[in-house]
């Protein structure tokens, strides 16, 4: 887990920074991006092993970001975060290549379990 690098993407700054700190306390290297454009830029500069991506963001929405990641970095698994009323987006995201989706608020143990599964499935690893 120490070598694992996760990129969290969410426009809710307080949410994403707190979640990042909790992951770091568990030994997971975590970077954050607050919008889709920033996420794409960070991935191009320093690809993470996994992306945790909010579906509903202003500007480039989560599903659009997912499409970009799957087109340019297909080996990076993506876990989507959905809210109420957007679970349909989670299922759409799965069809677009997302590894899984979780509904917010989430249990950190569930997120870590999904991250471990996604990475151990062999699709993790910087491209």
């Amino acid at each position, binding site marked *: 887990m120490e070598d694992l690098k996760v990129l969290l993407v969410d426009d*809710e700054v307080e*949410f994403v920074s*707190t979640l990042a700190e*909790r992951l770091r*306390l568990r030994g997971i290297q975590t970077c954050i991006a607050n919008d889709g454009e920033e996420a794409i830029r960070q991935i191009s500069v320093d690809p993470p092993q996994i992306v945790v991506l909010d579906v*509903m963001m202003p500007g480039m929405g989560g599903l659009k970001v997912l499409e970009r990641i799957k087109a340019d970095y297909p080996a990076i698994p993506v876990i989507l975060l959905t*809210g*109420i*009323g957007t679970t349909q987006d989670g299922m759409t995201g799965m069809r677009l290549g997302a590894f899984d989706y979780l509904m917010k608020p*989430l249990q950190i143990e569930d997120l870590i379990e999904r991250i471990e599964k996604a990475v151990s499935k062999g699709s993790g690893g910087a491209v």
Partner: protein
Amino acid sequence: MNASDSNKAAFMGRITAGVTHELKNVLAIIKESAGLMQDLLALSGDAQFPLREKFSKVLSNIGDQVVRGVDLASRLNTFSHLPDATSSGLDLNEVAGQVVFLSQRFARLKGISLNVQPHERSVIIVTDSLKIQMLLFQCVELLVNIVGTGATITLHPLQQRESEATVELSSTGNNETATNKALDLTALPEWIELQESALSLKARIEPGNPPVWFRITFGHAGG
């Protein structure tokens, strides 16, 4: 509902859906913040944090209330999408559960509990989801004003025939006050007769004998 009412309902639904989504984001931040405090607490020694037990209890309370808030927001979000829901198959067990949840506070203010006794299988009817919830809500409200404090009102969906489904409303616990009051079904509005022209679904309300106060039977006209 006429077109104007439908537009108003759709507007209110849309706004409520947006607000409940934001509420859930707020709850997610509270949850993660409380979680981070729990993490930090776990990392600190007893000497550093003499009030550990008290803090743990308070953080646990915050977590419980977040769960409650998420449930409320989720139910309200589901409710807010009713005006734009097309007539589709509905499970009366789920509809009854949703109505009980939404009516819970009004009942609690009168010291009355609400619950659902679901049918063993799904009870599917095809009708307008908003209208049926309004109907059941009105029925629950009527009973809440009749039964006494301490009573429990139960909604019990049943599938009697393939073409007919029923919801029984009964009460237990304190019916003494209630039996002195007449069940006035005229208090219910006219649209209680669900007239879906395309679906020909009707709701027939029949008074029963306490503890079963009345039955609402959903069936196709002529069926």
